[in-house]
């Protein structure tokens, strides 16, 4: 364990030494680099608004947005809606992702299961899930089920397709080795097939996370009485542009957060793979 940790951190350490040759306390300039562009955009935006280059009627300044965030945080409205949206996203993801993983594994491992379900699943896949919104509203109204259903449907396919692909692309030579060395089906699955499919499953998870937010935003914007999308739509009715922009920025931050979480998981689970060691 200690060996691999040392290997993983080597290139990172080398980079740090270049940036700041002095020993601790070290300031790692390299880590801030990805945030340079967003910061510049915000500073430029504030400057343009303050100098009167753009009208604040349709585009509030960053300070206005921050003030709106503060205001809504104090009333508790912000956190309530944030929590509602997060809970919907997470439960929809778990349900849809779970079903996708199940069918991906089943169809990857069993020819019969694949022949039985894959064609149907591929047909359903080609229906844009957002086109079901009118139907979903008729079925579920604007209740929680509607949002859960859409999110689950949206995340199902990327996870299904990538799990299936991952299992298919496990090296058959390794499977033969496992058999010859006396692994039973269970062991073969846990020690060879699943670890081999994991990189591909993670690709599916990251893709599904994007679809999860997209679906939730659309669903909440069209039919909801709580959540971030609802908050933005309400604000539009009262011309509260700052709140609309705040909602959009929160979506961006949540998307980044979900992506970072996946990356951390990837690094923990795929540390054996040179491609994931230093990303």
């Amino acid at each position, binding site marked *: *364990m*200690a*060996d*691999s940790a040392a*290997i993983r951190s080597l290139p990172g350490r080398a980079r740090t030494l270049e940036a700041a040759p002095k020993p601790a306390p070290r300031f790692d300039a390299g880590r801030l680099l990805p945030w340079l562009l967003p910061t510049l955009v915000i500073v430029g935006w504030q400057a343009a608004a303050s100098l009167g280059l753009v009208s604040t009627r349709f585009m509030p300044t960053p300070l206005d947005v921050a003030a709106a965030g503060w205001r809504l945080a104090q009333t508790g409205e912000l956190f309530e809606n944030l929590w509602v949206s997060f809970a919907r996203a997470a439960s929809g993801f778990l349900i849809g992702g779970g079903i996708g993983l199940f069918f991906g594994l089943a169809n990857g491992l069993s020819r019969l299961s694949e022949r039985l379900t894959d064609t149907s699943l591929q047909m359903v896949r080609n229906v844009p899930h957002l086109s079901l919104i009118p139907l979903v509203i008729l079925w579920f109204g604007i209740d929680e089920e509607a949002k859960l259903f859409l999110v689950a449907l949206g995340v199902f396919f990327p996870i299904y397709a990538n799990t299936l692909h991952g299992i298919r692309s496990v*090296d058959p*030579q*390794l499977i*033969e*080795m*496992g058999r*010859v*060395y*006396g*692994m039973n089906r269970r*062991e073969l699955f846990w*020690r*060879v097939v699943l*670890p*081999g499919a*994991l990189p591909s499953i993670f690709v599916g998870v990251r893709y599904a996370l994007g679809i999860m937010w997209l679906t939730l935003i659309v669903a909440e914007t069209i039919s909801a009485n709580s959540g971030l999308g609802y908050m933005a739509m309400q604000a539009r009715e009262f011309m509260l542009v700052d709140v609309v922009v705040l909602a959009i920025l929160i979506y961006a931050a949540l998307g980044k957060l979900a992506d970072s979480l996946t990356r951390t998981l990837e690094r923990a689970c*795929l*540390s*054996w*793979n*040179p491609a994931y060691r230093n990303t």
Partner: protein
Amino acid sequence: MTAALRLADTPEHRANRGLAIHVRGLSKSFENGPSVIRGLDLTIPAGQFVAVVGRSGCGKSTLLRLILGLEEPSAGRIALNGSEQTKRIMFQEPRLLPWARVADNVAVGLSRDIGKADRKARALDVLREVGLAEKAGQWPATLSGGQRQRVALARALVSRPALLALDEPLGALDALTRIEMQAMIERIWEAQGFTAILVTHDVAEAVAMADRILVIEEGAIALDVDVDVPRPRRRGDPALAELEGRILDRLLRNGA
């Protein structure tokens, strides 16, 4: 590379460790195709090091897989005395699990009912024999090609097999690494006394390592010669060169 071998090299010991193989009238064909093996008879005494050479597609790998029980014979029978003993194969590719550390890869070769601590100790023991003890905690991706093949050898040896099948295990290695690996396999075979079957394209490798060489042509044994040169054998020994020439002539004559 230097490893402490605890087992004594006595003929009695070796005969006890190895597995004798009796093959009678063995045939194998795949899905109504032509026979790959045709009525083959073969007896391999326990502890012998046999090399099987032949052109691509002559059936030598199929013969190996049949002896190991990886394929079912179409006709004939294979008897292994002490068939309950461990048989292991080393492939041309290392086939290590990339997501398991070196020691865990070696432990794949152990029976499942061995305790965790014991598995680790035995894996480390055999890694020491192949000179890779210090790599036990590493990922296979960090090793060189030759090191990976040594880990594969350790995985094959960790269960102390009575039969070790080598399916062109050194074919992908560079010339120097290959010679080192040949010496290592020969040394471990001498110490442990298992029966070894080496399938190879390389006739020089066969004469350097084996007690006996089988040339397979069109699914049958075309030549069966003993290599009477004492060990340790020196590369470039005239007797070996002469034998190598004879076998190559035979292989080339029939291919023309």
